[in-house]
């Protein structure tokens, strides 16, 4: 099944008769070549017609998502978001029309709509067309909108060039969004990002402000020289989660000096080798 089919199936299974009929009719009209106005009106009406409850997909359904579109992770989607993306996909004609309509929709969107449109990015036709749209979503100051692009969304990993990717990671830290739900975070670690993050940590230290322990996750694989000194400082002076993060970061560095440094802290070193520390636990403290 393609994503539009699984979305429709999940929604119909969860909606009352009236709401399901409204959605089916709306999608059908758009498939038959609906006008811009048909699309804009039906997308606006979604929460009034079908509500905003969580979609709450089960494991089998999450499996369907991955088969329909590798990397797609809709576990946090709600009914209105799924329905809005479904309607957008139903209206698909060609890439150019689709992007024009998406731009129009975003220009007049409310917060809930923006979250839905950005969560849908990995499902849209002609993926390379939406790079600027994704970058726009990353520039927002509305955390929920930013997270719609950055969290559990394979689109940035697949499409953003390195500078835009690095800005996204840095911005997540700026606005207090966690890094762990960013798909491809480890695979896209790069030396430029590691340097930017260390500079950022220094700024925060200078201002006497806390540094997110997650920051070190993207530093580790490229840590050498001065960056190792930064990690050493965290090991020496940091809080427990910060020290755990520094230890994990050192264990991911290819530099032999990193393992040397880690070994000077036997307890942490053992905790790493026994896999007692994880980035997931650091991102989601109890």
């Amino acid at each position, binding site marked *: 099944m393609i994503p539009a089919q699984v979305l429709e199936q999940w929604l119909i299974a969860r909606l009352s008769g009236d709401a399901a009929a409204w959605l089916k009719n709306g999608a059908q009209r758009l498939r038959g070549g609906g006008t811009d106005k048909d699309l*804009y009106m039906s997308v606006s009406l979604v929460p*009034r017609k079908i509500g905003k409850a969580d979609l709450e997909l089960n494991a089998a359904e999450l499996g369907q998502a991955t088969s329909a579109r590798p990397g797609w992770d809709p576990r946090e989607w709600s009914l209105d978001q799924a329905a809005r993306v479904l309607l957008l996909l139903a209206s698909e004609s060609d890439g150019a029309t689709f992007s024009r309509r998406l731009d129009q929709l975003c*220009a*007049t*969107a*409310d*917060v809930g709509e923006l979250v839905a449109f950005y969560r849908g990015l990995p499902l849209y036709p002609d993926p390379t067309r939406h790079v600027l749209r994704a970058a726009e979503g990353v520039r927002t100051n*509305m955390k*929920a909108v930013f997270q719609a692009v950055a969290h559990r969304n394979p689109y940035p990993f697949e499409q953003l060039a390195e500078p835009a990717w690095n800005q996204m990671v840095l911005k997540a830290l700026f606005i207090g969004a966690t890094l762990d739900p960013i798909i491809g975070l480890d695979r896209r670690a790069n030396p430029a990002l590691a340097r930017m993050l260390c500079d950022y940590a220094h700024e925060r230290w200078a201002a006497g402000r806390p540094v997110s322990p997650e920051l070190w996750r993207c530093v580790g694989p490229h840590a050498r020289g001065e960056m190792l000194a930064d990690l050493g400082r965290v090991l020496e002076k940091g809080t427990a989660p910060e020290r755990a993060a520094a230890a994990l970061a050192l264990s991911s560095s290819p530099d032999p000096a990193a393992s040397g440094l880690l070994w000077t802290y036997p307890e942490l070193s053992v905790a790493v080798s026994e896999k007692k520390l994880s980035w997931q636990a650091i991102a989601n403290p109890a």
Partner: protein
Amino acid sequence: MRFIDPHIHMSARTTDDYERMAAAGIVAIVEPAFWLGQPRTQVGSYIDYMSSLVGWERFRAAQFGIRHYCTIGLNSKEANNEALAEQVLEVLPRYLMKEGVVAVGEIGYDDQTPVEDKFYRAQLALAKEFDMLVQVHTPHRDKKSGTTRSMDVAIEMGIDPERLVIDHNNEETVQEVLDRGFWAAFTIYPHTKMGNERMVEIARKYGSDHIFIDSSADWGVSDPLAVPKTARLMLERGIAAKDVNLICYGNALKAFGQSGQMKEEHWLDPAPIDQRVLFEGNSVLRGQVPRVGEPPAVPQHSDATVFK
């Protein structure tokens, strides 16, 4: 005591205002679409403005634990640029069904020109088509006859008075508005329109049925705490707490709640998904207790940064 300010232009206000409003017990606000102090020249400016009402401003308010609703419409002053107004009328339907839009507003008359009349009627028709409430701005000049005319036209267009709010009332207009079954809102402005002492007397004389107050605070001299301050004065002057509650909270909720977009549970007990997307403040039930009748606290840093 909790308060609703059902007419305030937060886009023109600062975060200090939001902090003080939340501290004073304001839990929800309605931001009517209006003008920016000077006329817009492009339809694109309206689009960006209305998008900010359903987007950024809604988010900004939520960060301070205040629920933000808005009304969408073409204001009467700018209706006088007919060519532009036609284009604005065309984009309004794109916004009327957005989340948190509680009415078509603020619409009505300013100079009471024929063009203003044309777009007032066109927007009343839109309200009927979309089954929406209406929020009417009454003119500052020639107020009494302008208010009467606003109601006449609404009735002529088939609007149910129960679904229309007449705003910026005064002692001269209130009786007729109530007699005809509309909602009567009063704007408490520090130096103009209604002062809060006058409002106390209106409450004494007309009671609390179909009456509520707002600040209409904007980029001009105005007070975003007008609702809680007037509530305090009403309590001090012996108006019953039950009536103060209706005038400063309950009636605005009842009027705009008819839209289905504004519900008490939004601030008393926000749904988890909504809190995740939007609402950063504590729900009232889970913590924050507004101070009854006390002067609103002013955050210390505002003194430090503004005056030193």
